[in-house]
């Protein structure tokens, strides 16, 4: 697809953390953030940014949106004719940013709130009305912001992100708060935008659901990009096997013949097993052996599996670290962390 692509080269932003001493109570030091991110976003591509809480997804999106400065590295805009380095000001002209969970409030009307942002961007009132209809808020244009439901607020935030007809769209946890119908419509809208050449980055802490929407996934942890590519490519590069969860009635059958079994569980009347296998060609074997099967669910690797494989840590370590607020870079950067 023709259009502009965005390339991040060693992009770094680190938040300042309070580090008071007796003589300098205001002292700060570099804290968590994103470190040396190199990534490209092709025209009309949807990239899923995946990672646990505190991985740096939001910080990276804010940096690309021009809201946070780029402390190191550069952002390049590549078109067929030339390549240009972008600063925060020029980024804001071409990027639409949808922050996570904007809590619109007050007596201002929906239309006014959007018009205010439109004026800051130089977009017309006609565009505002069109966008309100596009996100399904045409009938609520005169409603007060405080009267909007969470789903409607999400739609309004999306409309705000689309104001300047951006070439690049950054969506931070966009499906939060949307009902299934709205989520489906939202995904359709993303595909329409994609077909028009808009490149989109969607951040999420869940791989499930993103797979169907995105072309590629970038896996982030501790402010670093661990892997990027299609889910299959990442799983392959991390030597992760696809798995399948099979369940059936009665007692756990004899599965000694099956070499792919990872774990099994049996209750009074049912059994469940997980196999490290894609499932292709396996079902006939179950049928031939007379094993009754109730469910057959192929599973792609989840975020925890991907993280465990990418970091070499076990599930408990990853789980504890996600819960911890002390998110430190995976690699030592500059020695401040020691």
């Amino acid at each position, binding site marked *: 697809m023709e259009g502009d692509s965005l390339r991040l080269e060693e992009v770094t932003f680190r938040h300042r953390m309070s580090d008071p001493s007796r003589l300098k109570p205001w002292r700060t030091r570099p804290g968590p953030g994103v470190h040396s991110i190199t990534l490209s976003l092709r025209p009309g591509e949807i990239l899923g940014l995946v990672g646990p809480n505190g991985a740096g997804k939001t910080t990276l999106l804010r940096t690309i949106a021009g809201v946070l400065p780029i402390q190191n590295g550069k952002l390049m805009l590549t078109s067929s004719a030339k390549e240009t380095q972008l600063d925060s000001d020029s980024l804001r002209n071409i990027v639409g*940013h949808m922050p996570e969970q904007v809590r619109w*409030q007050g007596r201002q009307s929906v239309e006014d709130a959007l018009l205010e942002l439109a004026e800051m961007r130089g977009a017309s009132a006609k565009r505002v009305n069109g966008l309100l209809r596009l996100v399904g808020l045409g009938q609520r244009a005169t409603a007060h912001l405080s009267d909007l439901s969470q789903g409607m607020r999400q739609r309004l935030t999306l409309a705000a992100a689309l104001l300047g007809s951006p070439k690049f769209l950054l969506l931070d946890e966009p499906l939060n708060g949307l009902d299934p119908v709205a989520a489906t419509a939202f995904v359709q809208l993303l595909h329409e935008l994609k077909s028009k050449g808009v490149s989109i980055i969607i951040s999420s802490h869940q791989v499930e659901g993103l797979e169907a929407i995105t072309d590629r996934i970038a896996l982030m942890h501790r402010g670093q990009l661990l892997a990027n590519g299609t889910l299959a490519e990442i799983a392959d590069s991390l030597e992760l096997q696809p798995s399948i969860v099979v369940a059936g009635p009665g007692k756990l059958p004899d599965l000694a013949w099956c070499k792919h079994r990872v774990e099994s569980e049996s209750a009074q009347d049912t059994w469940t097993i997980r196999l490290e296998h894609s499932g292709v060609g396996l079902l006939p074997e179950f049928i031939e052996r007379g094993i009754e099967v109730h469910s057959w669910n192929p599973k792609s690797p989840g975020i925890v599996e991907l993280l465990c494989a990418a970091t070499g840590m076990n599930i408990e370590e990853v789980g504890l670290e996600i819960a911890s607020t002390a998110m430190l870079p995976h690699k030592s950067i500059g020695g401040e962390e020691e």
Partner: protein
Amino acid sequence: MSDVLRIQSLARRVFWDRIGSTRMLIMLPILVLFLPGMAWGFSDPNIVLPGGHQPDQPMEVMFYASLGVVFGATMCGVLLAFDGVSRDRASGVFELRLAQPMPRTHQAIALMLGMWQAIFIPVAVLSLASVAIIRWRLGEWASVWDVMIHLTATALILFWYVVFTLLASSRTKDQGTAIAFGIGMWFLFTFLWALFTTMVAYASGVAIGEQNNAQWIALEGSLDLLSPNGVYHHLLETRLPEIERGVPAWQSWAMAVIWTLIPSSLFVRRMNTLQP
């Protein structure tokens, strides 16, 4: 749309948002009580102030009635602007604003102008009503120059308080801390400044509160230049030749410029480095 028009447009939106707010409706009776109410009281022909003084000139009455601005209008300015940045920052709307191509400096200017207009325009209308009340009670109009100086000084003091409050608001993310900052600062300059002046006088060996003591008057006059309320009164005193506190008019106006430029440039600087 040019940059200036864009700033004006955003400022106008901030103005309408604030002037139509519930808190403005609550504060309006307070402003009416403090501004025309004080003008009415001080223009009473039978009023006798401490020391047996009876104000009989329109500018003199306006000067005394300016207490309404110091105590009422500035507090209303603080209450109007305390969440000017923090509310949108906490809700996430601020991040959307920062993601727009409009430079942050322009956004800061629009925010200051919009908030300031939201408090100054009602105060200016009520001040003009006060001038009419004084005319009715004393039978004499204040000169155009007196009214101009009064309105300019009032505009400035309200601007200073609004900008201090926005600066405080930009430092906090929760509304409680934002309002505590704003009111604390108002309290410092409105009430605690007298204590500060007294302490400095005591440390300098100057007799405290002696209205005929030249040393005390000079010290109080000088220290008042360091407080927005003090500068406000110095500006009004430029139209009252009978009050002489040893501070020439140019010093008062110079301090007014400094009080305008330093906080507003600090706010612009803060906005340029602010993170959502």
